[in-house]
């Protein structure tokens, strides 16, 4: 096999691994953001349901 093959393959792997890492971090961040939004929504509903109790706490 030609040397160019190995060279290109190594760049492909480099691209692949960095893409996986970037993708994982972005997706993870998005999932956390969504969880926080979900909690926020639940929290607001709880507060509006019983404002007096929340004020005490």
């Amino acid at each position, binding site marked *: 096999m030609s040397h160019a093959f190995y060279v290109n393959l190594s760049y492909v792997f480099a691209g692949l691994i960095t893409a996986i890492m970037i993708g994982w971090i972005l997706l993870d961040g998005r999932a956390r953001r969504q969880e926080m939004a979900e*909690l926020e929504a*639940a929290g607001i*509903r*709880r507060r509006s349901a019983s404002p007096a109790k929340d004020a005490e706490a």
Partner: protein
Amino acid sequence: MRLKAENLSVRRGDDLLFSNISFELARGEALIVTGRNGSGKSTLLRTVAGLIHPEGGRAYLLSDGRESEAKVPEASHYLGHRNAMKVELTVRENLDFWKTWLGDFEGGKGLGIEDAADAVGLSGITHLPFGYLSAGQQRRFAMARLLVSHRPIWLLDEPTAALDASADQLFSGFVEAHLKSGGMVIAATHQPLGLAETRELRMKGFDYLAGEHAA
């Protein structure tokens, strides 16, 4: 539909834990099994649920006077000491799984996940992992499992053990509603469930009188 148990006997080791227990339940009837620890209350329930093979006797369903094709375990919910929920999954994932897995027995329909959570007084936290909840909350969601899929027979083993008074009341409400809609309940308990009309089966260990109080 009627649930009939004939001459159930269960052996543990060399001894008979109980023998020749017979009872019959019609729609809307409840049977409370009482007795001291070790008298075989749990074992009786597990036998009816098909989890223990009885030494003798059997339990079956009667419909229109004939023996039904459906087996008792399929027609029953069993709520044991453990909650049958995974702590790693969220409440919704847990209930969703049981809802799809169990399906509905003919003649009824289970509640939606959120409605069931609402019914046990814990709406709005179904997105939390089950393991984050307190013991009392976990127990309430274990009850919610009974609501999300329809089963005519409820087998309840110490259902109110980890519950405070208000949840206790809540649960009695479920049982009563279930009975009103034509369900049957067999519950093993120390404490009274607060039900108005029930029959009682007192387990006395080995020297009991067979099915004395049962119909």
